[in-house]
């Protein structure tokens, strides 16, 4: 069950782990708890030693919140994206039971479509897959598509088109299936 409230693993927890790892002299860190698996390595080509069934390939994580936090820190993370990307609690309207939030992987301007006038990436009610692109975030003319990271139905689009979103802000609410 992908209930974020029960897990209580936040993006901050992950950051703290990464910080500890960076300040250590370890080559690798591999942690498993509660269906969550984190693998940190100083070897950019390293992959998870043992991929859990639910996990997605690390390449698919490139644009998800957690992967964006980690990659420039010279560590690679592979984990269940459902758990990591959407676990962080935060302000704003509560997320309905059984639904999870896709959060902003970085601060930037939120766009619902790849370019002005083009069809939107997703609409409410739509079924999406793990690799479905759901929006675009722009920082100083650098546009980065954001992937869902999980399979489910779009229930709500919270961020407003063309508006700035802060790091970790709730963008889209998904009901996983």
């Amino acid at each position: 069950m992908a209930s974020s409230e029960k897990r209580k693993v936040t993006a901050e927890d992950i950051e703290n782990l990464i910080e500890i790892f960076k300040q250590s002299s370890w080559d690798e860190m591999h942690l498993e708890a509660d269906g969550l698996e984190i693998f940190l390595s100083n070897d950019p080509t390293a992959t998870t030693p043992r991929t859990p069934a639910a996990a997605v390939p690390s390449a698919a994580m490139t644009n998800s919140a957690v992967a964006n936090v980690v990659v420039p820190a010279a560590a690679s993370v592979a984990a269940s994206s459902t758990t990591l990307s959407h676990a962080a609690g935060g302000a704003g309207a509560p997320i309905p039971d059984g639904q999870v939030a896709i959060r902003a992987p970085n601060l930037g301007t939120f766009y619902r479509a790849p370019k002005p006038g083009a069809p939107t990436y997703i609409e409410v009610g739509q079924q999406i897959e793990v690799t479905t692109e759901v929006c675009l975030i722009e920082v100083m003319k650098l546009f980065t598509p954001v992937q869902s990271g999980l399979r489910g139905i779009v229930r709500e689009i919270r961020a407003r088109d063309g508006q700035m979103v802060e790091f970790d802000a709730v963008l889209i609410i998904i009901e996983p299936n």
Partner: protein
Amino acid sequence: MPISRVLSVNRGEIAARVVRAAHALGIETVQAVSMADRESRAAQLADRTVVIGPAASRLSYLDANLLVHTALQTGCDALHPGYGFLSEREHLARLCDEHGIIFIGPAAETIAALGDKLKAKAIARAAGVPLVPGTERIATVNDAVKAGEELGYPVLIKASAGGGGRGMFIARGPDDIVASFDKASNEAMEAFGDGTMYMERYVENARHVEVQVFGDGSGKVLHFGERDCSIQRRYQKVFEEAPCAAMPPALRRQLHESAVNLVASLKYRNAGTVEFLYDIDRQAIYFIEVNARIQVEHPVSEQVTGYDLVQLQFQIAGGEPLRWTQDQIPVTRHAIECRLNAEDPYRNFKPSPGRITRWVPPQGAGIRLDSHCYADYLVPPFYDSMIGKLIVTAASREECVRRLQVALEKFVVEGLTTNLPLLKFIATHPDFAANQLNTRWLEQILLPAFEATQE
């Protein structure tokens, strides 16, 4: 054009200081914070707070694109960089210029010129400012050994792009150079992306003095007196005071003139500090570098001159000229600042972040505390360990030292370990009261004595 809304992009005490100074001038504030600083003092004070990224500074405070994007999207017309982080990066200043945001600091070209230590020395030399005898770029160990013979040992070998002591070492003979040159150069390459080294005579009995300057970009420059920052550990300042009471008036005049001439030659804009080595034995000063930003220790200059330097930064950046003359900036008092850090002075200064459970700073006449901390504040583990600056002011140095001793004695911080015992030990040491010290005093005399109190 006066500034109407500023993005404050630093953290800790300076962010709170910047937000307050802006508010005092009627300027609206947006505070950029990382996830770890959402509960910070600056976030509480600012009109709006924006979470720009995760705790890791590389993905938040060190990302110029994020900062300028935030400034543009929140309707800010200016950006205050504080100190550290990107405050002296030409790239951020230039990015601001390109997008119509006022960078509250020197021009991008000025930052670039002064950021390169060798270029800065050339500028100083051209302005007639005295320099410590030294070399140009040194490429190899052999060249370094040859230069060492010519200058006479001991020599200091430094990274051209360096700072904070990284990529720097003292050589007392050719063997030291052979042992450390390549390592230091590699360290500089890793830290600054530039392994260029140079060398100068090492002045063993020296004080660190620096002049607070301000330019309005027209070529007019005023100074706000000098600071003595000789009490340092690993090139990190621990105590700073104004004025440098140990310096005779004639030399002080030369110091001020040198600093003003140097930055005036650049048509310097905004706040800066010109650092010098004060050679006590030769009674001479040598230029070290210019810090093109507001500095941690600016409050002591404010205390002795009565000017608010951060407000002045906003006014100059908003296009106001320096409308005073030098004689309107007399130094009439004495001020001492000490840096309170969340670190354990008994365990090799190991950082000790954590939650502050009790925070009772001293209060009273002549006592100022610049801090972002409060009871129940969590000092995050990701950044600098400084949690406050205690600044005391009095009519004389003697009175100031006494006031500092009392203030430190009354300062209560619980929940985490701080360097308060060390600060107290310094403030009550007879050498400090007698002002008999140099840049090596803390490490060579004070710290061994301090450690002995533990046994």
